[in-house]
C-alpha cells in the first residue's frame, strides 16, 4: 500500500558513482561509511521530505527516521538499485507515513512508526490496514451519500468548515484564512459541526428502516 516503485527522479545527474565498495562498507557496519551516507544525501533528502511535510522540523524528523530505517534494512540491500534511489524511496514512504500519523494520531512520535524496508521500497512486515472500520464504512457509496445529505442540513457556517476541513482536507490555518476566522474559532466551530453531524447521522441510522 505504501510501496513507491522506481521513480524517474531519484537519480540525480551527480549520482554516477560506483556504490559497490561503499555498500560493502555499509553492510559491514562501518559507521564512517554511514556518516558519509548521511552527509552526502542528507541535504537532498531534507528537500524531498520538506515537500511532503511542509516544514523544516518535521522534515528533519522524517530524514532521521528514514536513515534509521535504511540502516536496519541494509542487510537486505542487494545493490541492484543505487543507494540514492533506495534512500529516496525510503524517505518518501516515511514522509507519507508521517502525514498519515499527523491526521490520525497527532501525538504519536515518529519513532514508533519506523518501518522496515527492503531495497526496492517494499515493507518487510505486513502493515495492519490503517483504515479503521469507520473509514471502511465511508467507502460505501450509500454511506457517503447519506453523510453528504446530512452535511447539507447543517447551518451555513457549520457546513463551510466541515466541507473545507473534512472533505477537502485543508488545514486549520488554511480554513481560517479562507473564512477570515482565527484557527481557534475554526476548531470550535468544527467541533460543534461534527457534533451536529453525528447527531444527524445517528438519527438517520437509528430509524427503524428495513436495512442491513
Amino acid at each position: 500500500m505504501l510501496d513507491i516503485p522506481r521513480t524517474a527522479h531519484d537519480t540525480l545527474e551527480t549520482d554516477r558513482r560506483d556504490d559497490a565498495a561503499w555498500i560493502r562498507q555499509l553492510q559491514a557496519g562501518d559507521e564512517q561509511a554511514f556518516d558519509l551516507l548521511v552527509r552526502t544525501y542528507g541535504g537532498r533528502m531534507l528537500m524531498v521530505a520538506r515537500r511532503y511535510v511542509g516544514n523544516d522540523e518535521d522534515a528533519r524528523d522524517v530524514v532521521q527516521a528514514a536513515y534509521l530505517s535504511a540502516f536496519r534494512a541494509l542487510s537486505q540491500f542487494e545493490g541492484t538499485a543505487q543507494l540514492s534511489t533506495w534512500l529516496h524511496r525510503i524517505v518518501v514512504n516515511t514522509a507519507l507515513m508521517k502525514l498519515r500519523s499527523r491526521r490520525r494520531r497527532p501525538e504519536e512520535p515518529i519513532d514508533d512508526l519506523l518501518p522496515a524496508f527492503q531495497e526496492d521500497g517494499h515493507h518487510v512486515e505486513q502493515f495492519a490496514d490503517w483504515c479503521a472500520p469507520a473509514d471502511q464504512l465511508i467507502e460505501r457509496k450509500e454511506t457517503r451519500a447519506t453523510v453528504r445529505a446530512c452535511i447539507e442540513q447543517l447551518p451555513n457556517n457549520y457546513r463551510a468548515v466541515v466541507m473545507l476541513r473534512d472533505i477537502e482536507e485543508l488545514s486549520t490555518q488554511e480554513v481560517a484564512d479562507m473564512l477570515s476566522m482565527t484557527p481557534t474559532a475554526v476548531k470550535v466551530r468544527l467541533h460543534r459541526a461534527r457534533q451536529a453531524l453525528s447527531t444527524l447521522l445517528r438519527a438517520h441510522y437509528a430509524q427503524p428502516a428495513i436495512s442491513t
Partner: protein
Amino acid sequence: MFSCEDVRAALSDYVDGDVSPDLRRELERHLSECRTCQVLYDTTRKTLQIVTNVGSFEVPEAASERLVTRIMKRLTATRHAPTPRS
C-alpha cells in the same frame, strides 16, 4: 455546448493524454476557438515541464552538522540496544 468550465475540468487529464477520443475532439475544437483556454492549456503544460525538470536538479544545501550528529547518535544507540523488530 462545450464551455470553458468543461475545459478546465478536463485540463489535467488532457495534459496527461488521458482523455477519450470524443473528449479530445471537443477539447481541441474549443481550444482552436478560445484564446483564453489555449493560454491556460499552454501555461499548464509549461508548468508541468518546468516542475518535472526541476526534480532532477541537484540541491546545494547540505545536512547540518547538528542533524548529522543527531542521526549518528540515534544510530549508535540503536546498534547497542536489543533488536526491537519482531
